[in-house]
């Protein structure tokens, strides 16, 4: 049944709906592949095989009884380990949540399961999603299926590696500054950060609440659209969830992109992009032109400041969100503390890794008396300027294109000693989070034998145009069909 793991979510669903294959067979094929490949990949922190098989059998019985197949019937999914699945631990890649069992399931996960998807497990991530390589996980190293000595990207690196290695056709991640798109690019798959407010964050562990968004990773735009259609839409349990209808993103995928204007911020892209990565980007633009799009220049003058603004805003919000991990209400406690003050300090000292501490300190500094105006408030002002840039830019173009990352996957350990270099890996992805825009990363070929991504960024809540363009790109190219060399079981 190994061929089943080559299928995308849409193909699995149609075979399940036609009763050519059972959900149980689909789930077993993927569980077998995880058992064969994950010891060398390290994508999963937990596999919920019994739960998955039980749900698959239940769905098979329902289908046998003549119930119509839902939109994701039998499609295996993996969840980044900051999304709650009731009854399974949520670790967030951190020791501080040791022993914590979430008492409820995230809305996005509930919606996937309601659509017939079957959760196979929880995937590795940078601790509290703080990182661009999955190396800050307290538990294990995740390797890039294209080159086991390289990072899968991050922070949703486990989800990206699992999809690239055909252990699941689709996965959920979260994206605060590029954590879906950057690993998708480095693993050669598709990743979507939806518009801010598009997907409920109920049951997603908070990192930076004005930036976080849940989204899908898959090997095709079609699967990304399928999953997005299932998880998008207003949720009364998340006050930031937008009151806009959930569009049918699959129905609009075949639209022509004739005349679509794709803006390129040339000055910004010209600086600091590795040579081959830039070449693949330029070729991708030509492929879009061949498909009917018009490539135009767009001025986004404040773009170079996005990364600095991002690291002040994100860390400030994180320092506040992570204050709740104090050894009282969740997970880990330093049992030997004599008083509550020491309890907080010692629990947080033992529970948090270096990157999380660094960001909490930076964020606390940016919010502290005497520095608040100069750092936090100024960064929020820059964010406002950046959004104005995009609003102006979208008067002359429909999408903005950049490479997703400045270079392909770096080596494990290459940047762990230099946080600033690690932060700069997010230079092209953070603007969409700051401005709340939807953005998509698409595989656009290889640089030095490693995948790189084309990033498209759209107007708020215009996922239709974004995914329509991504689909047109995949009809015109075959980069998404490239298979990583290191994924055959041996």
């Amino acid at each position, binding site marked *: 049944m190994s061929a089943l793991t080559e299928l995308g979510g849409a193909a699995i669903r149609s075979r399940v709906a036609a009763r050519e294959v059972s959900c149980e067979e689909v789930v077993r094929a993927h569980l077998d592949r995880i058992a064969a490949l994950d010891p060398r990949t390290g994508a999963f922190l937990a596999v919920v095989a019994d739960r998955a098989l039980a749900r698959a059998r239940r769905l098979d019985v329902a289908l046998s009884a003549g119930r119509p197949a839902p939109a994701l019937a039998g499609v295996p999914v993996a969840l980044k380990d900051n999304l709650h699945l009731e009854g399974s631990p949520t670790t967030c890649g951190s020791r501080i949540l040791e022993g914590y069992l979430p008492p409820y399931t995230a809305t996005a996960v509930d919606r996937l399961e309601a659509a017939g998807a079957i959760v196979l497990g929880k995937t590795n991530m940078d601790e509290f999603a703080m990182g661009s390589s999955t190396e800050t996980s307290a538990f294990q190293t995740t390797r890039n299926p294209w080159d086991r000595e390289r990072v899968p990207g991050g922070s949703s690196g486990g989800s990206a590696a699992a999809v690239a290695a055909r252990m699941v056709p689709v996965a959920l991640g979260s994206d605060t500054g590029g954590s879906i798109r950057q690993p998708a690019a480095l693993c050669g798959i598709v990743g979507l950060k939806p518009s801010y407010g598009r997907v409920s964050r109920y049951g997603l562990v908070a990192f930076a609440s004005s930036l976080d968004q849940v989204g899908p990773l898959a090997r095709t735009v079609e699967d990304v659209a399928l999953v997005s259609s299932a998880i998008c839409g207003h949720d009364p349990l998340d006050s930031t969830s937008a009151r806009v209808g959930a569009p049918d993103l699959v129905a609009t995928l075949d639209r022509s992109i004739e005349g679509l204007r794709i803006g390129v911020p040339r000055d910004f892209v010209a600086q600091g992009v590795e040579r081959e990565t830039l070449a693949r980007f330029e070729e991708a633009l030509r492929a879009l032109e061949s498909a009917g799009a018009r490539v135009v220049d767009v001025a986004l003058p404040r773009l*170079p400041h996005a990364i600095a603004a991002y690291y002040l805003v994100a860390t400030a919000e994180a320092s506040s969100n992570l204050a709740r991990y104090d050894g009282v209400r969740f997970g880990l*406690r330093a049992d030997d503390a004599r008083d509550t003050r020491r309890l907080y300090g010692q629990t947080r000292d033992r529970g948090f890794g270096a990157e999380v501490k660094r960001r909490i*300190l930076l964020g606390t500094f940016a919010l502290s008396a005497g520095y608040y105006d100069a750092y936090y408030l100024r960064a929020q002002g820059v964010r406002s300027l950046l959004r104005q840039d995009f609003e102006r830019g979208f008067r002359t173009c429909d999408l903005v294109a950049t490479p997703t990352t400045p270079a392909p996957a770096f080596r494990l350990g290459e940047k762990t000693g230099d946080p600033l270099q690690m932060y700069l890996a997010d230079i092209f992805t953070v603007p969409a989070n700051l401005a709340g825009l939807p953005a998509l990363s698409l595989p656009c070929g290889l640089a030095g034998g490693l995948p790189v991504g084309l990033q498209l960024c759209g107007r708020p809540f215009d996922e239709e145009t974004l995914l329509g363009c991504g689909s047109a790109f995949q009809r015109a190219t075959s980069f998404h069909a490239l298979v990583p060399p290191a994924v055959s079981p041996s």
Partner: protein
Amino acid sequence: MARVTPATVDLVTRLASLSLTEEERRLFARQLEEILTWAESLQALDVAQAEPLTAPSAPRELREDNPRQGLDRDRVLQGAPDPQDGLFRVPRVIGG
């Protein structure tokens, strides 16, 4: 505009309820200084007319204030390190 001395790190560490080793204290002082120096480019921008953007889209309306059943207390407390009789147990707060 050097800012981050070990004393600054001590203050921020206390505000953040962290406790650091001497090695972490020195490392973070140096790294925070590097990161903030790099973020210095923001100071060149004129933000006087820019309304700080705290979130891309604020909720437009508050939800109805309808009472409803919350999560089960015992199940929620299962995730805590030391629950007892529906409460969180902690070490002594005063006079420790």
